């Protein structure tokens, strides 16, 4: 129902040859498409208008760089404008203060406050080495307190003991006192969901804020939100002076225009984003990535980064050496499978690629799913040490034993062995110089180029895809050619970035 903005802009400018500068008529035509794209991404209309005015000024008369087409130039201007409006660089959470640092969570019902509070506790404990206490001030929703308590256990954070006799305000005060007494570094206060127009509840929120004087007042908002995002953000900001926004459910396929609306009306940065149901699925906000998402340019940067993160450097070096020497055994295969799982499985990975979201179903239909990876892992784990290194040992009776041990069939084991052999052959090829060069180019050139803040040009994207295709990574083989033809935008090589790449971004 909505062609990508890139295609539309290309057609707007298709009649034009290369020109020195962008003239007003071209820009207006292009910006009409941009406007529609932003509205379709749920950016609030008043925000779109402000944005368009800014952009028009910048775009008209802008010199078109050599070697860049006018549509690319416009995308670049729009993208930079979006990044700028989304807050430029990402801003960290203020927690390094005289303890306890107090974080107040607020938002509409169902925006994800309680889950985010749990995630934040885990994040601060494990990454920032803070001692965190959680406290639920939600006396409205049934079992909200139980939910927070369960999350505190998962995050191994402290929790304020409940009480049925206190008001939310009394609870907040008691939470602060006990966090102080027990030497917590951070106190996270979860509050009940409330409508921005509910004056009584907004007044309560103001009272809580006044009583605990938080260092951060975070508005938790759903990235699926529509035009209402402006009104909600405005109302909360007016009532309790929000210091930052947490955008949840960014693992969905909404384009997330609400992000732009809310930063614009509050002037507050988005500090964190929720990207999954698991407790560790909380990330720092990246304006550049968000801009790409709103403009529907895919999340290639995220993918490259995630790949780099999941693959520990040492592991990668070891793998690279083994590949180069043509050695690749079942242990290596297992490592690959586990890395894939770490990256959120096939589902998480596909969701990040432009235009691939819709394909997930087809891929699932072709029998490639996360369960298959689990099964393969089980098969390898059912082999003994010698078998894992010397795959040749696997005769019929061993295979039968392995199938029984892993709860699979001998056919499954055979399939895995076949895939392993294909992969080992591929690894040998990659050991050659040209293979290594392609990989290096992909990580160095690709990641550096994309992460450098600019928008990847169409050429860059294509290059990247080609390199990804060429690198012939193992997943392509795992899928064993079962993927329907033409499904894979990266050529025959399978999904990008999954192999044990030597070295990461410098």
């Amino acid at each position, binding site marked *: 129902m909505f062609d990508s903005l890139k295609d539309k802009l290309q057609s707007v400018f298709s009649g034009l040859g290369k020109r020195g500068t962008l003239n007003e008529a071209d820009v207006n035509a292009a910006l009409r498409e941009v406007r529609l794209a932003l509205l*379709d991404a*749920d950016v609030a209309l008043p925000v779109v208008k402000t944005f368009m005015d800014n952009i028009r000024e910048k775009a008209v008369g802008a010199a078109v760089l050599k070697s860049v087409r006018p549509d690319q130039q416009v995308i670049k201007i729009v993208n930079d404008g979006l990044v700028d409006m989304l807050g430029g660089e990402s801003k960290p959470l203020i927690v390094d203060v005289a303890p306890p640092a107090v974080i107040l969570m607020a938002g509409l019902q169902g925006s994800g406050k309680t*889950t985010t509070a749990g995630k934040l506790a885990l994040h601060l404990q494990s990454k920032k080495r803070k001692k965190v206490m959680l406290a639920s001030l939600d006396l409205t929703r*049934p*079992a909200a307190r139980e939910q927070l308590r369960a999350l505190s256990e998962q995050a191994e954070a402290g929790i304020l003991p409940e009480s049925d006799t206190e008001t939310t305000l009394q609870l907040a005060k008691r939470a602060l006192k006990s966090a102080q007494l027990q030497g917590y570094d951070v106190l996270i206060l979860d509050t009940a969901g409330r409508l921005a127009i509910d004056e009584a509840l907004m007044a309560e929120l103001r009272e809580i804020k006044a009583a605990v004087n938080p260092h951060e007042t975070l508005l938790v908002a759903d990235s699926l939100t*529509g035009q209402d995002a402006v009104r909600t953000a405005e109302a909360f900001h007016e009532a309790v002076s929000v210091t930052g926004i947490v955008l949840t459910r960014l693992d969905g396929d*909404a384009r997330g225009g609400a992000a732009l609306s809310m930063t614009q009306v509050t002037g507050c940065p988005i500090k964190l984003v929720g990207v999954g149901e698991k407790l560790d699925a909380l990330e720092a906000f990246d304006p550049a990535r968000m801009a790409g998402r709103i403009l529907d340019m895919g999340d290639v940067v995220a993918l490259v980064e995630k790949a780099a993160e999941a693959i520990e450097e040492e592991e990668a070096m070891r793998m690279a050496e083994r590949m180069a020497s043509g050695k690749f055994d079942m242990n290596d295969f297992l490592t690959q499978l586990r890395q894939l799982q770490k990256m959120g499985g096939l589902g998480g990975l596909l969701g990040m690629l432009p235009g691939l979201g819709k394909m*997930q179903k087809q891929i699932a239909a072709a029998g490639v799913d996360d369960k298959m990876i689990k099964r393969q892992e089980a098969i390898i784990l059912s082999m003994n040490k010698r078998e894992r290194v010397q795959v040749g040992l696997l005769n019929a009776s061993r295979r039968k034993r392995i199938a029984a041990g892993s709860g699979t069939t001998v056919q499954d084991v055979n399939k895995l062995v076949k895939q392993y052999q294909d992969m080992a052959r591929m690894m040998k090829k990659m050991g050659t110089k040209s293979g290594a060069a392609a990989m290096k180019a992909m990580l160095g050139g690709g990641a550096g180029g994309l992460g450098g803040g600019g928008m990847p040009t169409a050429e860059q994207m294509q290059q990247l895809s080609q390199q990804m295709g060429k690198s012939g990574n193992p997943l392509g083989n795992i899928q064993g050619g079962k993927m329907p033809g033409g499904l894979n935008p990266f050529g025959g090589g399978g999904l990008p970035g999954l192999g044990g790449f030597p070295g990461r971004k410098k």
Partner: protein
Amino acid sequence: MSWLKKLTSGLRKSSEKVTQNLSSLSRLFGKEKIDATSLEELEDALIMADIGVSAAIDIVAALKGHKWQGEVTPDAFRQVLAEHLTEILTPVEKPLAISEDHQPHVFLMVGVNGSGKTTTTGKLAARFQKSGKSVMLAAADTFRAAAIEQLTGWGLRTDTPVISGERGSDAAALAYRAIEEAQKNNIDILIVDTAGRLQNRQELMDELAKIIRVMRKLIPDAPHSSLLVLDGTVGQNALAQVKAFQVCADLTGLIITKLDGSAKGGVVVALAREFGLPVHLIGVGEGAEDLQAFTAKEFATALVGLDPEIDLA
């Protein structure tokens, strides 16, 4: 306060953007035609209600062709707009019906995280209890922390038995057991609450399909009602949600929640045009009685900010 007043007051209290925008059309009063600027403003107003760009363009085009009789006053204009929206929404206005032939009549509640499935399940239980049916709930959200406790809380509040299992247990197995229990106890209505899932997470959608598959082992035509619970504040992603859930959960209808806030739920108009799925109920508050039948005329009236007392022709 009547629910319509509640709905309308919610829509009015915070931002009267639609209304405001429409009253800024005042410059055309006295004229018998509407000029281009006013129509553009109307389009903006519709977009700001989450109706979506393409629906907004079509509606504006339709209004452009309207033959005005005499002066165009703001209320007259709104009325024509409301009538037009009513026309779009009327085909999806269908009350939630249960068939006496099913024992139990099985409801399946699906939706993305935080849309209000569990709360709506509780409210539905209260509603059916009141009408004298025997109701049973199944806490098949075995993923979210304390989701089971939340539904159990509603069970206590509404005096409804709740079938639940361990957190992290298999949701499909639980749904199966709930049907067995409901059959054994001659329950009229079984409502199965499921975990929230984003529609682009294929593995979670597969899990939902499995729940249905397993339920059908006991009752081949279950679920008799497969309801998508949609957050009224959602934007254009609602279209993607309906599309995906329709594929894997054979939706029979929609429930729109959280319409007591400042969001207008205009996306319902886009959904009606695109899918034509029945909209059964709307949620306009936190109380058990705040789940109300959806009526096209009243929704349209509230959406354009007309006084509910004014009767549409």
